[in-house]
């Protein structure tokens, strides 16, 4: 397969003429495992959580059909900006990942990469029945059935697809959880990293990326 050209070991000539070998799997990524972020002093943590809950930046990637109901949220009618929620283009800038429905195995692989690249504290909102128990694709050979087995989910919103109001309520619920200090998905991921990785590797067959890429 040539699709992962940039991950193969190769010799490169730099503009100044120096020749060196690049092994992307070693050189581009840090193989450090994720770490549990212990809460700060209760008072400070409370302030942090308040701040976090009021600036939810969402990764603008529609992974499935539920993303159809996101544009109404970003536009005047439902206007999620007033709740402190806005869309961002890249994982590095975002703190909330909306998995908008079923995940094909091919997308799951990218979702894991994108999720791991996000800066903590990070949260996941899962939209629709398909993230809970497979939904109408429960018997499909190419979609996963239970999202929370592969990445930590903080809030599930049922519906097929959930209406914009339901998604907004999901944000409200997420805020509540953040303020209560219960939205600990990222820490859960770090704690049970091996379990998550094991599940991921069970379904992603050609595992040609680092175990953790951040």
């Amino acid at each position: 397969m040539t699709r992962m050209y940039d991950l193969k070991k190769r010799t490169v000539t730099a503009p100044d003429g120096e020749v060196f070998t690049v092994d992307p799997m070693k050189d581009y990524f840090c193989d450090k495992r994720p770490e549990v972020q212990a809460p700060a002093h209760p008072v400070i943590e409370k302030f942090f959580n308040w701040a976090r809950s009021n600036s939810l930046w969402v990764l603008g990637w529609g992974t499935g059909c539920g993303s159809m109901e996101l544009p109404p949220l970003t536009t005047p009618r439902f206007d999620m900006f007033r709740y402190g929620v806005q869309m961002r283009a890249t994982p590095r800038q975002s703190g909330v990942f909306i998995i908008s429905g079923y995940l094909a195995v091919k997308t799951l692989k990218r979702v894991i990469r994108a999720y791991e690249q996000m800066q903590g504290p990070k949260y996941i909102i899962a939209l629709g029945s398909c993230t809970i128990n497979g939904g109408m694709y429960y018997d499909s050979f190419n979609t996963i059935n239970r999202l929370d087995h592969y990445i930590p989910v903080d809030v599930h919103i049922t519906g097929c697809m959930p209406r914009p109001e339901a998604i907004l309520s999901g944000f409200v619920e997420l805020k509540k959880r953040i303020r209560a200090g219960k939205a600990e998905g990222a820490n859960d991921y770090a704690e049970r990293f091996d379990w998550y990785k094991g599940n991921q590797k069970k379904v992603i067959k050609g595992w040609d990326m680092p175990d953790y890429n951040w």
Partner: protein
Amino acid sequence: MKEILEKIKTKYEVTDVLQKRADLLFFTIDKKMVLDILNYLKELEGFTHLVMLSSVDWLEENKFQLTYIINHPINKHDIAIRVDLNRDEATMDSIHHIWIHAETDQREIKELFGIDFPGSPGVDEDFVLEDWDEIPPMRRDFDTLEYSERTFFPRDGRKTYDTKEYMKSKLYPDDKQ
């Protein structure tokens, strides 16, 4: 539509002619004649639009059926040409030089049914799947539910009762039948 069929019949041996709608004609033709007839229909009869190339798995008869649906944009009618392939050694000549975009169809069919089209650009590349290592999934003998349960483990705790059996166990448990 009738004239076209008569014309084709003089040149090619067609079987299983099926016409239920005035503007849609189905027939089967031998594998060797397909490129010839497609070329003929496209260049001389004006069937310039390839609607789709599809395949059907007739597992019970151990054959694959390929269907080329071509359309005459001016006279506004379609011909669907069926070809039967042996399921064990399913290969077919590529038509990408007649319609360039047929390469995508052929790539898809190669991946999902395992029918090979030697020479078609990119036919061996992954199309929608990634690192698939089972039998081609659109084949009838691939059980998608079984695969899903084995691989993606559905949420447990579900149990259903058959109405008839349940009533029997409640109302007349002793009655063995």
